[in-house]
């Protein structure tokens, strides 16, 4: 969104690539709610549209919408030029404005709001809107930069920065208000908590007066942390009717090692390995041989690769040299 494509070459971001592949793997598990191919995908494709291409290829989505905050015509032309699939519909405008223009209640959607900035009031507005609108069986993922931005007056504490960013002291979790201080290691957890609370408030609104089994609830499945450049956090939830919890269970998200339903994130740390080394490791047929292969590699790098090798963006070697 909003022009980070001019600063970041998304194809050179291995952690993001891994994240995308993991997400695709998780999307495939939504089958108990209905055919995955029939889901609509709403994203913020940037000029690279990497997520669109991947999700179309892996999950078979054909109903695709990309929201791009690109007001000027020349930038829009660039986006139109770069659209890789004829079925991608481009919406130019701010997500706060464009999301409400789409219909939500009648179509299961996977929506990935991949912001290139930190958690702001605008992000919370989008989350709340979608929590109140997403059709049951939908999935919402939100990615934000976890660096809190310096305000106008400068020199503020992390807590002051966060309050300024989200524009409402009322949304700060009680435990932080009570402590009066926000410490660096707590930031991601607090961002996650604030986003989840916004989800809860959005669903509370729509649930008023509904019978219990038809109330909308949500479960977190993604909690990714990674850093290609800026440190990023992705939280994702599956939205469903309380009465269909059985369907959610049948998805068996917990079978996926990267699915995290709580405060502990799955950290995507790309290994520093050469394509040669990776290919060699890929040849190992079992975990034991992988771990004991005689390659002269630091243990740490070997371990990093172990956790993500299925998801490593293989096609990218040539481009990444």
């Amino acid at each position, binding site marked *: 969104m909003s022009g980070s494509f001019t600063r970041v070459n998304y194809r050179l971001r291995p952690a993001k690539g891994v994240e995308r592949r993991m997400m695709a793997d998780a999307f495939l598990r939504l089958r108990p709610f209905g055919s995955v191919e029939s889901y609509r995908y709403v994203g913020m494709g940037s000029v690279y549209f990497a997520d669109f291409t991947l999700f179309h290829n892996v999950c078979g989505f054909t109903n695709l919408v990309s929201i791009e905050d690109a007001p000027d015509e020349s930038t829009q032309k660039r986006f139109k030029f770069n659209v890789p699939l004829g079925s991608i519909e481009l919406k130019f405008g701010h997500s706060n404005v464009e999301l409400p223009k789409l219909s939500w209640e009648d179509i299961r959607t996977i929506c990935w709001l991949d912001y290139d900035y930190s958690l702001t009031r605008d992000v919370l507005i989008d989350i709340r809107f979608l929590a109140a609108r997403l059709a049951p069986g939908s999935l919402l993922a939100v990615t934000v930069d976890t660096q809190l931005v310096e305000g106008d007056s400068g020199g503020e504490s992390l807590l002051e920065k966060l309050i300024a960013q989200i524009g409402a*002291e*009322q*949304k*700060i*979790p*009680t*435990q*932080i*208000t*009570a402590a009066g201080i926000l410490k660096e290691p707590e930031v991601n957890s607090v961002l996650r*908590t*604030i986003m*989840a*609370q916004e989800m*809860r*408030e959005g669903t*509370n609104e729509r649930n008023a007066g509904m019978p219990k089994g038809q109330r909308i609830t949500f479960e977190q499945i993604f909690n990714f942390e990674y850093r290609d450049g800026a440190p990023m956090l992705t939280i994702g939830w599956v939205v469903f009717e309380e009465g269909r919890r059985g369907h959610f269970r049948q998805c068996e998200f917990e079978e996926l090692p990267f699915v995290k339903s709580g405060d502990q994130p799955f950290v995507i740390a790309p290994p520093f390995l050469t394509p040669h080394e990776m290919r060699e490791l890929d040849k190992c047929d079992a975990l034991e041989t992988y771990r004991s292969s005689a390659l002269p590699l630091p243990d740490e790098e070997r371990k990093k690769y172990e956790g993500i090798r299925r998801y490593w963006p293989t096609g990218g070697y040539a481009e990444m040299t």
Partner: protein
Amino acid sequence: MPNSYCAGSGKCYNVAENNTVNASPTKRFFIAVLVKDISFLDAVVELVDNSVDSARLDGGASNMIGKTIDIRYDKKQFSIRDNAAGISIKQAKNYVFRFGRPKDAPATPGSVGEFGVGMKRALFKIGRHFEVESWTKAEHLHVVVDVAKWESEPEKAPTDWTFPMDVAEKNKDKAEPGTHITATKLAEYSVQQLSSVSFGTQLMLALKQAHTQSLNDGLTITVNGQNVAAEVETLLLSDEIKPIVHTEVFYVSRKSVKVRMVVGVGDDKLPKAGWYVFCNGRQIEAAEKTEKTGWNTAFDDDQKTPKVHWQFRRFRGYLFFTSDAPDALPWNTTKTGLNVEAQAYRHVQPEMQAAMRQVITFLNQVDAESESEGDKPLSSALDSARKEALRELPERRNFFFKPSSNRPAKQIRISYTVPANEGQLVKDSLGVSANREVGEKTFYYYIKAQGLQ
């Protein structure tokens, strides 16, 4: 002899005696209407209001040290305990639990509660079961209400509505006076609110705002064991800058109202700029900067108070209303805002406008000064002034600041945009690196070339 009733048409009907229709409310309807216009958070604050009133009455409004209000909640239960004077059996029987304040009820001087619905409304909003236990020095009582049960009792005329008081005795154990209120069987929206990770934050902010004056007077409020911190309001004071502090007593329908108005300059934070209004210690407006408090309205000489701009970020105005007759104060029924039509408020408005104009004139001069080159006496006066708590400020009718003796010549800003490459050409030609220098140098070049000076 039957009564007769004559319609507007002139036709008269005989009406048999006792022939009336039943118009009495059902309890269920009554409760639904009662809680409709209050938010959950406001309901909680309302309960705290009651305790604050009681504490102010007990220890005197200006000394609340040792008075505590302890709020606890989880998803199943909400409770509030205070150590104020408590409710006597007579008060409980006749006034406290009645909906609405009977005409013969004794006045509670300086209180927040006015309409006599606050506590009941709040309790009905929060839960379907509540208990009130209270100790005065001499007595002990316990009232318990199971709302579902109460509603399902055979309908009676509202004049016969009662709540059971299962304990009404002497305070024989010499328990510390105070009132404990516990609500359970919480309403669904109560549970949702109380489950919110940020409810504690919201509550503490609301209480800090509503009761900033009592907190500054020594009252302790805790939320799940966490102290609600008082924010001490300050204004800048020095030999060069002195705020307006003006106290006046006037009458609204023969009821005495006292107002203390404090207007001056504070920190340069725009969100904090504006008017703050307190009624009997309860803050009802904070950082108000709309037409309500006179921003952006015309004066009689057609001069307007401006819209709120960055340059007015230091403006602060405070109105502290107090009265033994709460109905004479300019607040709305939920005590969450100004009633701009209230006489007490209309009475002080001219003074407010005049005060505001003085401070704004000053801030405009500060702004003009900051745009100009050279000495900045007003800004440095602001920087060197100390922050003084409002209550310590001396009375003075007019805003005072020492006008700078050598006011800098008025300056204007000229700006324009040019294509970057052309701008660079001129920069290179002038041998400067900043855009601003390009503007200045070319400007004076023109003056010189035209022989304008």
